[in-house]
């Protein structure tokens, strides 16, 4: 297999993700509605209760909406990453996973292609959200929208790789509800997405430390700083390290035998 054939395979995986995405317009809408609800409804209600002090990367007092915007961008990436795990389990149950497994292109490359495809689709949704958020008064520096791009790509890869790793562990489609309860919600709420960690520390020291060990916290901080043209080295190192770890784990955990056993009884 030559390099050009690897690129053709990558192109095929990306195109399929886009085709599926276009077929599922409601997925795009729900991906936007969820963070917008948080931004418009939740933030309005909690603005007064959760005052935010001046903390890096911000140089002045900011509205609560501005504070949670990076976290909501990451929320889109988080849900999309988990959605990818759902689609992998669906492909496995429906049998279409076998097409991927029968490819002569190495599975590691195909999984990385899938991750990048998920990231590309997620980014479209994040920027659509940022455009609407702009209308709601969340106005990060325009250049920040560009400097945040690499951070968003890395976070999308991190959350996609966690999703792929989980998909190797989920036995049935029905178990996805468990992912919601045990992965998405704890990851999101035990992070700095909705409140700065010093606030969390004021109420609970041990919760603060759980948040500190949550890779999603560092993903949010990476995006928050990048939106304001700053680099949070610690957040970058942790996000990069976790992305590498989960990508490797996803590739190792990918078990073709589970796909072969899916579907109706055979002869």
């Amino acid at each position: 297999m030559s390099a050009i054939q690897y690129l053709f395979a990558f192109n095929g995986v990306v195109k399929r993700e886009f085709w599926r995405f276009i077929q599922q317009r409601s997925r795009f809408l729900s991906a936007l509605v969820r963070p917008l609800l948080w931004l418009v409804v939740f933030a309005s209600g909690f603005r007064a209760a959760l005052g935010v002090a001046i903390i890096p990367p911000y140089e002045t007092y900011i509205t609560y909406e501005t504070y949670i915007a990076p976290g909501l961008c990451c929320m889109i990436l988080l849900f999309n990453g988990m959605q990818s795990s759902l689609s992998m389990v669906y492909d496995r149950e429906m049998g279409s996973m076998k097409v991927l497994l029968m490819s002569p292109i190495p599975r590691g490359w195909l999984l990385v292609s899938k991750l990048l495809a998920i990231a590309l689709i997620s980014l479209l949704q994040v920027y659509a959200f940022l455009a609407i958020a702009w209308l709601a008064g969340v106005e990060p520096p325009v250049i920040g929208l560009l400097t945040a791009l690499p951070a968003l790509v890395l976070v999308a890869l991190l959350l996609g790789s966690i999703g792929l790793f989980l998909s190797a562990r989920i036995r049935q489609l029905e178990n996805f509800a468990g992912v919601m309860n045990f992965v998405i919600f704890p990851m999101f709420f035990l992070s700095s997405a909705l409140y700065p960690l010093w606030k969390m520390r004021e109420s609970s020291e041990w919760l603060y430390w759980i948040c500190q060990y949550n890779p999603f916290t560092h993903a949010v901080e990476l995006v928050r700083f990048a939106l304001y043209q700053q680099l949070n080295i610690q957040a970058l190192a942790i996000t990069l390290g976790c992305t590498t770890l989960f990508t490797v784990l996803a590739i190792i955990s990918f078990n073709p035998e589970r796909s072969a056993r899916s579907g109706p009884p055979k002869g």
Partner: protein
Amino acid sequence: MSTPSLEIKSVTHRYGSRVALESVDITLQPGQFNALLGPNGAGKSTLFALLTRLFKLQQGEILFGGLSINREPRLFLSHMGVVFQQNTLDLDLTVLQNLEYHGALHGLSTREIRARAEQELEWLGLKDRSHDRVRALNGGHRRRVEIARSLLHRPSILLLDEASAGLDVASRQAINGAVRDLCAQRGLTVLWATHILEEVKTSDPTIILHKGKVLAQGIGQALCDDQNAQSIGELFEHLTGTTGQAA
């Protein structure tokens, strides 16, 4: 160039303590329609999963053109087309999109895939359905799409696992006929797994698999003569003690 041979040597596969295949030895006749006949639960799908490398080989050897498929897995996969018993098409994509995805996974360019897809779909009578969603196709047409897809990368071996299962008699005969034409016209080696006796001709190289063991292997007529059977059905009943399924 002659079609590379496929040999399965002393292959045993277990699911825990249950033996699914036991010392299976099979040699496919290159460029011919080889029938793998066995009732449900005979081990056909397990054999397919091993051939397609979805299962790891536990014991024994599978040789393709004299080379172990464990040594040259990618070469083997690039030479093999497969139609599984279970649907493996993405129902929400169009026929052409399904083919494009498969072709890309075999390292083909979009232009090359489209040219080949047009050719295969025309041959299978589905050219005018290429932009239809697979969900809109009936079972027979879906099977044809799977066959078209399995041929896109120009394999030298085609494996079909109960490819006609669940179809009406006319669709079943049409698909069986189309695959036989493939052998004749393109020199493909075909392994056609089925439990339907009428799909096997006495002139076919035939393998009878039952409870994970190969009970007989050879040209159907010769096997019938050996067992004093008048038909493949009688041979099958004599060897397995089951009647198989008529069309």
